[in-house]
């Protein structure tokens, strides 16, 4: 795995980054003042219109029906220069209060968070411990690639729809991979 701030490889059991000393507490300082109480869709950058937000929320609800263990959320924010989309995503995934999610277990390890930084024009997909062994870094990147032309045009609604479609395929693939691993481990 990589450190969300310095992006260097760290051990999977490390309690802090050996390269930059990152912990979750340090991220709390970095993102102090950022909204923690967010819904499944948080448009902090204000790039979506009302009807576009509704459309994205419906897509998120459908996705969650197919994956009942997961909490799937989308967040758009304008980040400052010393902040970045990776670390913000990790911070929000762990510190955010996703209202409307009744099941605590879904929050515990099954969060899938798509973060779009409208200031630095970057987008990144984060996922919780439940999917950690099923999703690779590059696969998560490729799930977002098809939205690139729309992101360049600032058509964020269509871009998010496409990214969620890619995320669905990614999750299905991860499901197959994890199931196979489970069967292999059982043997």
């Amino acid at each position, binding site marked *: *795995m990589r450190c969300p701030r310095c992006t260097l490889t760290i051990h999977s059991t490390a309690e802090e980054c050996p390269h930059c000393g990152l912990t979750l507490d340090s991220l709390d300082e970095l993102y102090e003042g950022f909204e923690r109480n967010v819904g499944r869709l948080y448009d902090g950058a204000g790039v979506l219109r009302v009807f576009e937000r509704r459309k994205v929320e419906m897509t998120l609800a459908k996705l969650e029906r197919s994956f009942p263990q997961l909490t799937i959320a989308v967040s758009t924010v304008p980040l400052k220069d010393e902040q970045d989309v990776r670390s913000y*995503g990790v911070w929000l995934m762990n510190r955010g209060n996703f209202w409307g999610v009744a099941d605590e277990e879904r929050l515990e390890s099954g969060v899938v968070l798509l973060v779009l930084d409208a200031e630095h024009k970057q987008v990144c997909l*984060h*996922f919780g411990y439940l999917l950690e062994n099923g999703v690779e870094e590059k*696969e998560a990147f490729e799930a977002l690639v098809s939205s690139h032309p729309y992101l360049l045009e600032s058509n964020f609604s269509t871009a998010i729809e496409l990214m969620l479609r890619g995320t669905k395929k990614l999750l299905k693939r991860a499901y197959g991979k994890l199931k196979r691993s489970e069967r292999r481990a059982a043997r």
Partner: protein
Amino acid sequence: MMRGSARFVSALLFLCLGVNATLPPLPEWNEEDQVRLKKGELIVGRALLTLEGDPKPKVNPEDPIAEPEEPRAVEVPEPIVPVPARPELDPIPVSSDRTEIHQKLLERYFNSRPEPGLIDPQHLLSMQESEDTRYAFREHSAESSLPIYFFLFDAHQKVPEACSPQFVYDRLFAADGQPVVIIYYFMGEPSRTQFFLGGAVGDDVPEWQLRELLVNASHTAAEKTDIFDQLDDFVGQLSMRLFWVEKMLEELVNKALPQEVKQENQKKDQVDYGKWFGALSSLGVNVAPYILVLVSGVVGIISCAALGFFWMRNRRYIFPVSDGGKGRLGAPRGVSSGGVLSFRNMDQPPSEQTAQFEQDLL
């Protein structure tokens, strides 16, 4: 050039004169020959046309193989015996006022059951007119189940009471009970036409409808002056009116038709509606089971596809839960993230952003 042509022409003239000079002189007529020619005893050019003038081949006495030819036998044609003049058919006497129909003609009309269509034993129509009328009846029979027996008479001929349409129907057509239309048409006198609808339906059809049909056809025919045009119009109008009457009374006609005829009509309809099936059936292939299997297969595939789609859409993916690996960097929910997709620079496509996945060497 001119000189050469003149030389060539003069040489040709000299050559012709030289040839003429070598020919023998032509024979001359004498008086004896002229007398024989006038009497017909001498035929000019006989030697060229017959063997008489052929000179005998010269026989070489020294040649032992050559033998004189035997004289040829001349065939003498048999004398033609004159045959006394006699008409080929016995003429049918015609009454002076041309109103009566001779018994022989009546027999030809009504002796046996005729074929549907035109019945004209007197040959009142020319061959072309007769063919045209028969064609009209063939067209009618192709579309109608009511056969028409169209008896043609001359303008002033009177049909005896014993040969009225009712009697003719009873004698020739009543046996099978099928509905038929019998018409006596008088050439040039369409108003004298007699109409009879036989069969069980005949009693059920209202009299006024038949009368209207007949009057309309007669009036249409009377509009023409030429008698064949009258007949043509009458047949056309009759067929048209009969078609509509038949449509209106279809139930009555069908009721009157025997069961075999109904079945035959049904079979005909089936063949018309399913030409392909008919063609396959004629090849000895019973298509019904194949169609059933095909339809069942298509329905089955569509059902499976619909069920599959429904199942995929409503499928729930439950991930296997593992307890290991939690609490990295002090994070309770997770710290994993995918690659970052940047869209700041239009000239940097996603394919050029994959360098971030290269493993660092630290």
